[in-house]
């Protein structure tokens, strides 16, 4: 169920992959929307930790266009609700996350992403 809040915290960590390693690009996605109780205070507190551009681009790639291009200075309650929906209610159950830098594919099955590296990708 990779949620976008999680996705926003993940970067490709293959050895020497430092360019274009974030955000990972979704493909072949099976998306499920599951309503979740709102905690807008949490969303508000989490805001500074997010990478806004990555979030908006990713949400758009999954068909959600409710978020504004640039991060608002302050959020209205409706905007926080839209953000809650994107971060907490959109689940990617199946599909792939691909690094735009090195091309590593992280597969998601049953909502669990496999982010183990292959032997030659482990540093040191």
């Amino acid at each position, binding site marked *: 169920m990779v949620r976008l809040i999680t996705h926003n*915290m993940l*970067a490709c960590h293959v050895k020497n992959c430092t360019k274009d390693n974030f955000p990972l690009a979704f493909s072949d996605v099976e998306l499920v929307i599951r309503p979740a109780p709102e905690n807008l205070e949490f969303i508000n507190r989490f805001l500074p930790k997010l990478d806004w551009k990555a979030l908006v681009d990713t949400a758009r790639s999954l068909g959600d266009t409710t978020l504004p291009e640039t991060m608002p200075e302050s959020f209205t309650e409706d905007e926080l609700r839209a953000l809650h929906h994107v971060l907490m209610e959109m689940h990617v159950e199946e599909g792939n996350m691909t690094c735009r830098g090195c091309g590593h594919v992280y597969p998601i099955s*049953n909502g*669990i992403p496999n982010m183990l590296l292959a032997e030659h990708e482990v540093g040191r």
Partner: protein
Amino acid sequence: MPLYILRISSEHHSFRIPSLLSISQVFKFPIRFVSTDLSRGVLIVELEKEEDVEKILERDILVQSATELYAEGATYDELHANLRAKLEVFEPYKHSTFKITTDSCNHRIPEPRSRETINTFKYTGLRGGVSMKAPQVEFMICEDYEWEVANTPEARFARDGKFVRVYFGRRIGLGKARSLITSHAVNTRAYYGNTSMDAQMGFLMAGQALPGPGKIMYDPFVGTGSMLYAVAHWGSYVFGSDIDGRQIRGKTKGKGVRPGIYRSAAQYGLEDRFIDCLTYDVTRSPIRRGGWVDAIITDPPYGVRAGAKRLGRREGKKPLREAPYLMEDGEYSHKKPDYLPPSRPYELANLTVDLILLARWLLVPKGRLVFFLPTVNEDYDEIDIPLVEGMKELKIGDGSVQDFGKWGRRLITMEKTATDDGEPPTFEDHDEFDLKKVDGKLPGHFGFRERYLTGFRPRKHDKTDDVALTPDGEDASE
């Protein structure tokens, strides 16, 4: 400020004060311990208001009941004298239906004497009438005895009345969290494994993480998720990772199959608090930034039932491949769906330092790291808890220990004192635990698995013991 009698389980008594302090911190109320002996079944605390007691009854898994203390004494004469001097406490309850019950620690009061004793409280002037089933107010007499083995009815009868102290007060309520021990029992859980933490201990650990709504907590060795159910129960959002995805999923595979951890989460109604579970090695982690996790709570694998693993190949074996491996069928090995990268044992001493460094980076300021550290009791030393800049151990008395005889596990609670994120840890092996480089004292948890399996033979500190000291583990690539 009013005093309260907490009747508290004698199990895990080194966990009770940290547990109460953490609850007082979550709900921001002051608590003062009035009892001088903090290990008895009766604990007297001072609190500002009854609401605070309610919070304790709601959250503390060790607390059986709470009573507002009216009077106490070493004898009934003393108790009665003290209570007669403050009969005004009964004023609000003059016309309420009531009952008086007896309770005792380390003893059971025989029924006839119980009734007899209750009848000596007639002077309280309560006129509302007795109601055994649904009283408006309940008073309690509690006798506290020394712990003693009394195997026969005669022996038990002989010590009746020989209590250390007796208390009287108005009962506030019973501990509500006690029932979590049965409702969250591992054997009734939809999904669990052989390393799942028992429910009571899980909740005691969880309390130390200061869980609550709107906080986000992480277990980097999530396994079957035991740590997360407890913190999520108290409202936290949670996520976990494990190098072994099979632990997260369970045996059943295929499309549409719900992973085991999510099945248990659903059983407890916590699905929407389980943000995600991911398969990765925490030493090779995809987390892109620090400073956003409220608590890290984990029971690291220490090798008895499951050894800790990290990606890599064991020292002395062939080095890691630099390039992908092309198989005979023309496919790269790592592209196969059942590909598992090689792993090597993750020495507990290294893991512990790394865990604290990880917390230093990932936690928000004042965030907490809570974990169990197994240790050989003889070898334990203060220095066993690695010192990391920006992280401080919160230790009360001698700390919280679950003692199994020759070894024990200590519950370590640390707080991030640093206000910046700092750098992510490099997860290099630490020289201070490299047997080829050090002669000095090793921590009590070093090579724990090997020591457990050899019955905790005293450790020699010479280098010829290298072989016996090296913790064992299997290489997944073999």
